[in-house]
């Protein structure tokens, strides 16, 4: 009897959780589901790149150079030096995702901080931030990065830092606007009255209230950073050999466009599907998180 008593209320509870999950899943459109699955796959590939990669990225198989895809033992074929395209693709996915993740986070933190500083101090600081944002908007990012990378020489850390400047002005403008309107609201004034330091007010009270809008901008910046990095690598100014990234693979595959188009097609397809997935999932998230942005 006691057993029945305890289990009875649990079962319907369990059911509602399950059915709620099922309902939530059914509400996800097919395209968004595909996007989430693809992105999850990409993240898994990036994490376990070392384990699933069949060959080393510089391992050459000189007897089967420019091998066709679909042939054993090189599933996606080989390039001009007999290096396995699949292995290089896996490593490229890791490289491009690491750069894009790192850069998105740097850019969000940097931009939001500047935006908050502008909102807190107003006056000269605010003008300075806005002039910097104007400057960033006036100089196309690709041109600016080409100049910097070519003159300082390309290195992995410089590339991440540089990409970390991509889109900061967007976060700065959003964070500034949101923080100014938030600090006019009762809750911010209340914690200030309670003696909270500005740091605490901004990080613990204002940031959580504006976070959803900032996350939405991150879903916009992320694919753009992937495209920017692959563009630079394509021009030979981004990731340098022997390391490889998606754009880098397309750039080198271009030399063999007539004889071995698969070298260039495989990474191109990954770039397209990844940016497509992020924009599908991002659009969906935007509708869920921030109905005002629609």
């Amino acid at each position, binding site marked *: 009897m006691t057993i029945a008593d305890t289990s009875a209320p649990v079962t319907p509870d369990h059911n509602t959780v399950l059915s709620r999950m099922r309902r939530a899943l059914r509400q996800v459109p097919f395209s968004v589901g595909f996007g989430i699955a693809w992105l999850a796959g990409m993240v898994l590939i990036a994490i376990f790149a070392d384990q699933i990669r069949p060959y080393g990225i510089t391992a050459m198989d000189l007897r089967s150079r420019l091998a066709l895809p679909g042939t054993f033992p090189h599933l996606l074929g080989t390039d001009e030096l007999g290096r396995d395209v699949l292995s290089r693709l896996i490593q490229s996915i890791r490289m491009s995702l690491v750069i894009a993740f790192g850069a998105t986070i740097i850019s969000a933190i940097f931009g939001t901080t500047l935006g908050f500083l502008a909102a807190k101090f107003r006056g000269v600081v605010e003008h300075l931030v806005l*002039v910097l944002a104007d400057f960033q908007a006036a100089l196309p990012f690709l*041109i600016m990065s080409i*100049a910097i990378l070519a*003159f300082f020489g390309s290195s992995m850390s410089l590339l991440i830092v540089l990409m970390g400047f991509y889109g900061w002005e967007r976060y700065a403008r959003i964070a500034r606007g949101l923080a100014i309107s938030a600090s006019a609201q009762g809750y911010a004034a209340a914690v200030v009255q309670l003696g909270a330091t500005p740091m605490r007010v901004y990080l613990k009270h204002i940031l959580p209230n504006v976070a959803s809008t900032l996350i939405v901008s991150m879903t916009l910046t992320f694919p753009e950073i992937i495209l920017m990095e692959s563009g630079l690598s394509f021009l030979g100014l981004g990731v340098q050999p022997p390391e490889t990234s998606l754009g880098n693979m*397309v750039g080198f595959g271009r030399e063999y466009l007539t004889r071995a*188009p698969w070298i260039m097609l495989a990474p191109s397809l990954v770039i397209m599907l990844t940016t497509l997935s992020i924009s599908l999932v991002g659009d969906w998230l935007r509708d869920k998180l921030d109905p005002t942005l629609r």
Partner: protein
Amino acid sequence: MIRFILTRLLRAFITILAVITFAFVVLRMSGDPAQVMLGPDAPNDTVLAFRAAWGLDQPLWVQYVAYIKSIFSGDFGVSMRDKASAIQLVIERIPATLQLTIPALLLKLAIGIPAGIYAALHRQSIIDRGVIFGAVLGFTIPSFVMGLLLVLLFSVILGVLPSGGQDTWQHGILPTLTMSIGGIGILARFSRSAMIEVMGQPFIRTASAKGLRWKDVVWSHALPNAAVPIVTIVGFMVGSLIAGAVVVESIFSWPGIGRLLVVSVTNRDLAVVQCILLMVAATMVVSNLVVDLLYGWLDPRLRSQSAH
């Protein structure tokens, strides 16, 4: 209105000054041009002579002041490699870049805007779905992939169009297409959403309720109001024309400004890079300025706001 224009002009000027400073700081901080141009084995007095000849032995701020002065007197320096005037080198390449960017821009406007407006007025139609799909493609396919796919299809598989160079007008087709396809999608999507938003406004309902013909409602009530956001994105497209040309000109070995930039950057040709940086920034600033002024003309509300 005059105050509005003056503030815009001042902001544009400050932005240009910031770009000049940026170019100067980055390019001077990055290494000794004398070593790069002459190689590591150059004798010491050659290096010193080179530095004296290019003013590189002066303190940095002296170089900076001299630089700003020369920029505003129209002197952009001399290419360290070709010994030709930098601005001359850049100007020589402008026609080639315009040959690609102007047709590409016209294609974007002529196809993108009507397609977006049509899609907004006929939602769920085939054109509407096509616009949404095209916009997604335009956003997700980077231009270097698009360019190579076009080369693969038209030059390698079909063999009907040349894949690089600038000899005949046929050589311009693939680069122009590469530049415009993505932009058409993006512009169509923008026009569509701008138009949808306007069509949902109460004054459209009023206009149809008072018995205006549908054509008049669209042409004289909806379109002028949808123009403001469309003009914004077009202004941005005009401003970033040169940036878009960098990748496309590299793919198709088209001798324009974009290619000149990539080549000069590999050669560390400071004067040419600075000149192009300034030109790109100036294009962007001027097109933003024009857009701002167009707002005043398109939207009387903004005009009256700026009046006081």
